[in-house]
């Protein structure tokens, strides 16, 4: 469970996150909102790239904000980025092993853990293949494998299905949906694809201009009139 209390982020003159209180109970949680709503900024706060002006974040009872950024991976935080960032020069195996090496997991379990993660996401290519030679879907799967290896506790996925065709998005969604049961991690999924979010996420939170406008079971949230208006961009004119 992640509890966010009165979280505020300020950059010179803008407030991308404004006094947000929200709880991510567990399982797969959606985080949606129009462009500029503060979703990626929220991930950056969790990763330690951005220091909030106010507020606290407790993840499984621990104060996440007091941890140094690079130590959060060892604690169990994983994330992917909007632009896919699998390491081109390394093989699929090395890409995943690299995360395992910095996760605090034992060396003895490395090979089996890495192969299990690659197998979990359903990559058919050889683990020895260079990531630079793979297609968009396979690279995204490598990223997900990187995000689940080495006992993750929180997995942040930032638009993992961006620019993938519908069918591949559905497959990716199935993989994402299985992460909490298999690895015991809490997943937060940011995406603009509402069918992906409703297929994967039991609960969803909605940000708009840095403010939380709804949170709860996904189906209810997506019917919420504030959410519908925010997405259509008509709240002001109505």
């Amino acid at each position, binding site marked *: 469970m992640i509890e966010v209390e009165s979280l505020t982020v300020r950059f010179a003159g803008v407030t991308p996150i404004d006094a947000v209180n929200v709880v991510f109970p567990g399982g797969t949680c959606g985080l949606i909102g129009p462009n500029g709503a503060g979703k990626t900024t929220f991930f950056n706060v969790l990763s330690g790239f951005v220091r909030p002006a106010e507020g606290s974040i407790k993840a499984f009872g621990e104060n996440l904000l007091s941890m140094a950024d*690079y130590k959060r991976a060892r604690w169990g935080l994983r994330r992917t980025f909007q632009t896919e960032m699998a390491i081109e020069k390394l093989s699929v195996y090395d890409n995943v092993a690299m995360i395992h090496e910095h996760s605090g997991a034992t060396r003895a379990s490395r090979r089996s853990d890495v192969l299990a993660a690659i197998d979990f996401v359903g990559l058919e290519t050889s683990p020895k293949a260079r990531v630079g030679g793979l297609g968009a879907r396979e690279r995204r799967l490598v990223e997900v494998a990187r995000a689940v290896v080495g006992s993750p506790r929180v997995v942040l996925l930032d638009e993992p299905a961006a620019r993938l065709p519908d069918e591949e998005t559905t497959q990716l969604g199935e993989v994402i949906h299985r992460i909490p049961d298999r690895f015991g991690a809490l997943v937060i999924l940011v995406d603009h694809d509402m069918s992906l979010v409703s297929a994967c996420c039991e609960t969803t939170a909605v940000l708009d201009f840095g403010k939380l406008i709804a949170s709860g079971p996904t189906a209810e949230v997506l019917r919420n009139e504030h959410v519908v208006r925010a997405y259509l961009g008509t709240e002001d004119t109505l």
Partner: protein
Amino acid sequence: MIRGASIAVFLLIALFALPRLFGSDWITTFTSVAIYAIVAAGLGILYGRVGMISLGQIALLGIGTWTATRLDYATGMPFPLLLLATGAITCVIGVLIGLPALRLSGLFLALITLMAAGAVTVVLTTIDFPNGGGGFTGHAAFVDLSGLKPVERPGIAMADTPYYRYVVVIAALMFLLGLLHVASKPGRAWAAIRESEPAALAAGVNIIRYKLWAFALASFMTGVAGCLLAAQIGTPKAFGFQTQDSITLFATALIGGVFSLWGAVIAGVFYQLVPFLFQAQWGLDVNFLYILFGIGILQVLLTAPGGIVQQFPKDMANLARLIVGLFRKVTRGGSPQ
């Protein structure tokens, strides 16, 4: 398999065939090629693996050479120990130079290291060690090189050819050291940093630590190369380590190919053997080389980021395809219409 075999064949040729085929002035040049290949390999780790541009590697080599000379005069320790001690001291100095540079990247890191190189050149020229004087600085008011003894080579490799073989073996060991790093945890962390620093950070990579590690490794290798150079030339001279040489080395490293250790060997060839060919063999002005290097850099920037080591096999494959194509045309009767 193929990789191991080609390395073995290359080493056998370098160790046994070359000394038989070439005269003594060539062997001295090949020794320098091997020494500068180590420096280029260090640069390859900094830029090719981590993405940090250092324009101060020749200055660092100068520091290594001077450290080795100073240590040899002071202690007369056995040569293998001198290699290790020089590597360790240069490693510390390299890390100290790298420390403030870690907050900077790209152009600014390049500038800082270039300025450090300039400072080293000034210091070396000013202290003018060794010029025949006594004491720690070895400085005399009046230069008298008559009593100056050269840095002693290892007992098993006093003559030029055995020393050449000795240097090739040490260079191979340094390459192996680099290879072991690249193929294991630090190499993967470096690859992550090169791809994207935020992503590496999110993956739990302690970026400062791994950048310093790369600086330490490259500096150690460069220090060892400096020690080898000290024993090759006997008494170091400051004009052998000019600031612009660091830039030239960076250029040859790019031309050779900065992502591969073979590229470092080619860089050594371009930096030492080609000038030797130009000047001593063909009697050409060495300044023509700068034009050649300029063209080489353009080629790397525009079409061949992997340098010669990646481009040459591709070009050869294209050439082979062209020849096979022509051959087919001819055998079909020579009348395509």
